[in-house]
Each structure stands twice: as structure tokens, then as C-alpha cells.
């Protein structure tokens, strides 16, 4: 028994009529994607994916278009049946759930926001938002009340009686979000909710969502193909490539220690100022003294904590010629001088 809210273990998804044969062949001979396509006319959508999401955490799945993000996330509410592997939600294996239990789970515990909004075109915005509640058997009065509350949360007050087609893309996406929130689920699945929007609105919605998740503390799986977004939103990030999760870690882990060239390429253009902490680049006092010169304790050194980011260090360094001392609980744990800082900013901290 673990306390992870979402737990995905060794999930494979192969599309095609001969998926099971293909799976067996992969298990037996370890054949690759191309060969699977050729021999079984089957597409490997997700390849042996495993991860856990803890309570209240925002987990970002990131990868290029077609890397299987949508496919993987649909396993979490079993819109897609895995070819192999298991999915546990709140400790329960949903692969073994009966249909009605599964429906209840989807209606009460999991909310989903779709890449293409997927609002129901013939229902008003309010009825769209109240959809899950209505399916749950709630009466119309309470449905409408909760829907209006959710509309308020996404600052769309007063649009309840419009049809989705009368709203702009950004507003529709907010309706999608409100629909997911209305049922007050414990888990939110967000499939590229902001990808189709222009940068300004996207930033707005991101901020709104961050504000919301601060308050609501929902366990969230957030999909995006934009690393900036992933870093902004995610506590942890999983990077997918061709259906495979190649690296999981915090934004800092991924930026400072990319697992392979693919990830390195991804993070190459990212500003490290706010991501990397002093602890990642600092040199221990002994090493510093051995290589450079002794630290003159008498002088007024600028000081910082290990978890301060590079931005802070740069700020401190501009006011002094002396190296920055990194102190934890008053004890000196490391030193960052200008050389180290510049290397750290550029991304070649290991010299």
C-alpha cells in the first residue's frame, strides 16, 4: 500500500487489431517500434510507462507531438485500456473495476480537461459544467448552483446561458476547466489545456490555474508540449519520447542533469536563472580554498542559502566583488564566485 494518488506501473499501449500478438513479440524478442508496425500493423502508443503522483502534486507530462502523452493520460481514467501494466487510483486497481464503479470514479474522483475542449455543443455552458453532477443524479437546482460557482472560479461569471460556440477559444477552455472542477474531483487530468491559446491568454490561464491549485490542492496530471509551461506548472516533470518516459524529476533535476541528448535538446534554450539553486553549483569551501585563494572571513562577504536560485546570486554578486558564501543554519557549506556563477548560468557547471 502506498500513499500515491495515481500510480502507473509498466503500462503499455499498442494500437491495432493484433496488439496482443505484438505485445507478445515485444516481450519475447524485444522488437522495436518500426518492426512492430511492419509485422503487426500496430502502433506503439505507450511503451512501458511507470510513474506516481502524490497527493496535491502537479505532475507534468511533457513531450513532442505524438509522443503518446494523451494516450498515457487516458489510461488514468481508463478511457483507454492498457495492453499491459496496471493503473492504480487511490490505491485501487482500476483495470479490475466494474463498469458502474468506473463510472462513479470518473464522475466523482477524476476531472478531465481536453486538448480540444470537447464541450457538448447542444448544451449551454452551465449545463456543460453541470454535466458530471447531473450524471451523478444531482437535482437541477444544485447542479446550476455548483456550475455557477465553478464559472465564478474561472472568472466567467454571467456566461452560463451561452452556448459553447458563442465563446472564444480561451473562454471555452475555461469552461472545460470549470467543468472539470465543478464535480470537485480529487484528481485533475489536463490534456494540453492551454496549447491552443495565444501566449497572453495562456499565461493568464496558467496563473489562474496556479492560483486555483494553490487553494484547492488537487492532484493534477498536466500535459503540455511546452517546457516553459511544464516548469511553471509542474512540481515534477516527466519527459516522454516515442511513447517512453525518458526522465522524471523536478525542473531543476531535468535542467541540470538531462538524462540524454533528447532531454538536453529540450532544455537547451531554457533560462536557468529561476530554476537552478545555489546548492547545485556551489563549490565546497575546502575545494575553493585549495584551488583559488583562502576566504578572508574578516571581509563583508555576501551570503545566501543553498536553496536560493541563481537570480538571487547574480543580484548579490553585482553589489560586491567578493565571492558569495552559501550558509546553511549559519554553517558555511559552499562558495560561489563569479566564474562558478557564469558557468552555472550557461549550463556547464561541471567544468
Amino acid at each position, binding site marked *: 500500500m502506498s500513499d500515491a494518488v495515481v500510480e502507473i506501473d509498466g503500462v503499455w499501449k499498442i494500437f491495432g487489431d493484433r496488439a496482443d500478438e505484438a505485445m507478445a513479440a515485444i516481450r519475447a524478442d524485444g522488437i522495436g517500434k518500426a518492426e512492430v508496425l511492419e509485422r503487426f500493423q500496430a502502433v506503439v502508443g505507450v511503451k512501458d510507462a511507470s510513474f506516481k503522483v502524490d497527493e496535491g502534486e502537479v505532475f507534468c507530462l511533457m513531450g513532442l507531438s505524438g509522443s503518446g502523452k494523451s494516450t498515457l493520460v487516458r489510461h488514468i481514467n481508463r478511457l483507454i485500456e492498457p495492453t499491459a501494466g496496471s493503473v492504480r487510483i487511490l490505491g485501487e486497481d482500476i483495470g479490475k473495476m466494474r*463498469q458502474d464503479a468506473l463510472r462513479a470514479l470518473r464522475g466523482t474522483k477524476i476531472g478531465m480537461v481536453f486538448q480540444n475542449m*470537447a464541450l457538448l455543443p447542444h448544451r449551454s455552458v452551465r449545463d456543460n459544467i453541470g454535466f458530471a453532477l447531473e450524471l451523478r443524479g444531482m437535482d437541477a437546482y444544485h447542479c446550476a448552483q455548483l456550475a455557477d460557482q465553478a464559472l465564478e472560479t474561472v472568472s466567467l461569471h454571467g456566461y452560463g446561458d451561452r452556448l459553447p460556440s458563442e465563446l472564444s477559444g480561451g473562454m471555452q477552455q475555461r469552461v472545460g476547466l470549470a467543468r472539470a472542477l465543478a464535480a470537485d474531483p480529487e484528481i485533475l487530468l489536463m490534456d494540453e489545456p492551454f496549447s491552443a491559446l495565444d501566449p497572453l491568454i495562456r499565461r493568464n490561464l496558467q496563473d489562474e490555474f496556479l492560483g486555483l491549485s494553490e487553494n484547492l490542492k488537487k492532484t493534477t496530471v498536466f500535459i503540455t508540449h511546452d517546457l516553459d509551461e511544464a516548469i511553471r506548472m509542474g512540481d515534477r516533470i516527466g519527459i516522454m519520447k516515442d511513447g517512453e518516459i525518458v526522465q522524471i524529476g523536478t525542473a531543476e533535476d531535468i535542467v541540470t542533469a538531462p538524462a540524454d541528448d533528447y532531454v538536453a535538446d529540450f532544455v537547451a534554450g531554457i533560462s536557468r536563472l529561476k530554476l537552478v539553486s545555489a546548492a547545485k553549483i556551489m563549490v565546497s569551501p575546502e575545494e575553493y580554498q585549495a584551488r583559488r585563494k583562502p576566504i578572508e572571513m574578516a571581509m563583508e562577504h555576501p551570503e545566501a542559502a543553498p536553496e536560493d536560485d541563481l537570480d538571487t546570486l547574480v543580484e548579490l554578486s553585482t553589489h560586491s566583488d567578493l565571492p558569495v558564501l552559501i550558509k546553511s543554519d549559519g554553517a558555511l557549506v559552499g562558495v560561489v564566485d563569479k566564474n562558478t556563477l557564469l558557468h552555472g548560468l550557461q549550463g556547464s557547471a561541471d567544468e
Partner: protein
Amino acid sequence: MSTQANIGAEQRNIDERDVSIEAFCVTKADYYAPIFERYQRGQLPRWHMNIWAVIAPWLWSAWRGVWLMFWISLAIDVIAVVCLMQVVKFTPLLAEAQLDPDANTTLISRYTNWINTYGTIGWAVLILGRLWMGSQANRWYYDLYNRWRIEPSVAHGVSPKRLGLGVLIILICSPITTYRATQLRLDERACFNQVRATESVESLLAQYHQVPDVPALSTAVREDAAAAQARFDQLDAISDRTAEQNTARSAARSEARDLGRSAGLVEEYLAISKRDRFDCFFIDDFPTLARLDPPEDVTYRRVTDEDGITEVVAQVKPPVEGRKVTLFTYSAESIDISINWLRASFAGAFDAMTNVLRQSLIRVEVAFMQTPWPVVAFLFLVLSWTYTGMGTTAFVASSLAFLALFELWQIAMQTMALVVVSTAVCVFVGLPIGIWMAKNKIARFITEPILDVMQTIPSLSYLVPAVAFFGISQPPAVLATVVFAMPPMIKLTALGIRQVPESTKEAALAFGASER
């Protein structure tokens, strides 16, 4: 530098494509690759021809797997050949007519006319068709190439097997069609006689099982006929016959007559030439091969006995000796009998349905007819105004005026009632079926053809079975209307449901909706 890279890229592109064209064409890729490229650039002139496709379009297309072209070119050539064969057919007739001094001149001019027309059309179709095929061949081949790139299982390359198949198809279709075109229309009676003779020979062979073949049968039957005739003559010669002798005499007479007729038929059978038989079998109407014993002729009747219990009684008529029917007649009679049975056994259900329909019709009719006409007219106008626009309202107004002025108001109201009831029935029956059909593959598989048939048969013919079951009055009219109006209803329902986008369904599922 960048342009150079671009050129390099383009070069690579073309090479790659050449490779794929080679994989597609297998042979003669160096002929097709530039043609495909010119076609892509829009530089292929209209008069560009593929020589092989001009000479033997069906062979070329079978060899290359362009089946669309195979069928089209085959059809064109068959049409041309049939036209030209008309010339072959009429030329000897013309010559004959010209030799004959008594022949009327209209016949000669008609033959000449036919020969000229058919000749011109035949040659024109042949030549223009070939030219068209030649210019179209490479274009179609290019389309095939594009389809192959998407779907590698599409026919590609060259294949002797396909060629063989093409030749086989041609061999099956062409000679007999050509032959048919050279023949004059067959005498239907001749074929009918043929069938009759063949049948009687078969039954005679069953009787005379000792005879080895048909000529022997002929002699055997003749001998028997002569024997019977001799017996008759002998008996006939006796002037004062006993009653016994009298019966024997008439028996002998009828036997002699029957055998004589059989002998005639056997003779006729022997006289049928191979060619006549072939003509009748392949060229005349589709041969009805089977002759069956007719189904048991049963009449079902509802009988109420003295206790007031009603039951269905079946009366079997004795079969008519030796009557044989075709499959068609057999089915017709069986259907007749089963309808009879249905009507007798489920009279209650039918009566109840008729009653329900009649009652609702009457109610609706009363509603329409007893409402004063100004009110009805006003309602119609208001309805059309609110739901459509100005134009429709004007149209409705003029139609109403027409009905009123031409004294059709009452009839129109009756019809309205009929339409209302039919629509209600349609919705109640059609909607569930439509939903079921959209949800269930098997249901779709079963209902779709039935619906198609329902739609294509003229609605008047539904009236006949409806009348058979429900008697003459308004209810069958309702049913006929329903049968006519329901298929679109069902189909559109199914279509509407199936056209719900995948993503919308997914979203509904994700929020806990059932699959429904």
C-alpha cells in the same frame, strides 16, 4: 549556401521519389518516373498517350493493376463490338433482301440505315474509347501510385497472375456477348417448347428405365403407342361391345393418344439442335431450372364452435396431379398460404392494431374537422410564422385558400389526421430502431438492406399487404405511409447518433456517462 542546401534537399527528394516509383512500377520505372513528375507539375499534355493502353487497354491495366481502367475499357470495347456485330448481323439480311425481287424497299432502306448507324457508332466508340484510355492510362496509374503510397497493400508492380485473371474475365464475358449480338432475337415459344420436351423426356426416361438412350426411348414409345393403337383398333372393330370392352376401348384410345403425344415430344427433343439449346440456355431469359412440386394448398379459417371457442382450422386441398411449378410460383403460393395463416391465427392482434389506429385517426380527425375552419387556418399560419419565415407563411396561406376554394377542406383535414397519426407511429417505432441501429453493428447490418428495399419499392405496393391484413379503410393507409416515411427517419436517427464526434463521446465518458 542555403540555396545550395535547398538544391541538395530537392535532389534528395527526387531521388527518394524515384526509388518509390521504382518500387511501385517494378518494370519500366524510367518511363513512368518522368511522366509522373510532369503530371505533378501540370505539364503533361492532354494528348499524351500510353501506347500499350491504346493497343490493349484491358491487358495493360490488368498487368499494372489499374482495375478501374480495366472495367471501363472492357465496357467500352464491348459496346463497340456489340455495335459492330449488328453490322455483321444485318449485312447478310440486307444481301438477301436485295436479291429478293419481292422484298419491300422499306426493309432494304431500314437495313442499310441500321448498318450505317451501327457501323459508325461502333467504330467511333472503339477509336475514341481507345484514345481516351490511352490518354487517361498514365493519369489513373499515377492516382494508383498515390493510393499505394498511403496504403501499401494497394495493387502495384506488374503481375502475370493479374494478367491471367484479366484474360479469364475477358474470356468469360466477351465471346458470349459477341455471339449474342450477332443473333436475332430468340423466339420465346421455341425455348418454352424446348423446356417442355426436355421435361417430358425426363419423366419418360424415368418410366422406361430399361432403355439406354433417347433414340431408343423414341422407338420404345412409338412401339407402345402403336400397340395401344392396335388394341384400340381391334376393340373398335367389334360392333357390339360389352361395357367392359367399352371401357377398355376408351382406355386404349387415351393411352394411344398420350403415348402419341409423348412420342411427338421425344421427336421434338431429338430435333433440338445444340445451338438452339445453347441459345435458349445462355442468351434467352435466365433459365428457370427447377420444377418443384407445389406447396400443399391449405386454407386456414377461423371457426367458432358452439362453446364460443374460436380456433383456426386448416383445410388441405388435394394436390392437382402432375402440376409442377417454378421457384417463383412456389414462393408466391407459399407466401399466399402463410399470409392466410397469419391472418387467421393473429386476427385478434390485427384487429386490435386496426382498432387502435382507427380510433386515434378518428380522434385526430374529429379534432381537425370540428374545429372551425378559421381557427385551424389561423393556427397553421401562426405555426408556420413562428417556426419558419415570411415566405413559407405566404405559401401556407395560398395553399389553404386553394383548399378552401376548391372545396377540399374536409378531405384535407382527413389527410392531415392521417399524416399526424403516421408521424406519431413513425417516431415511436423509428426512433428506438434508429438508436438501436446506431449502437449495434449487427442491427445495422440487418436493418440497413431492409430499409433500402423499403425505400425503393413504390409506396403503393405496401398498400396491398396492408389491405390484406387490415382490410380496406384508413388504417392501412396509415401503415403504408409509415412504411414509406420510416426508413429516412430511422436512417437519419442512426446517422445523427453516429456522427457525434469521438472527442465529445470521450468527454462524456470522462465525466462518468455510461456507454449507452
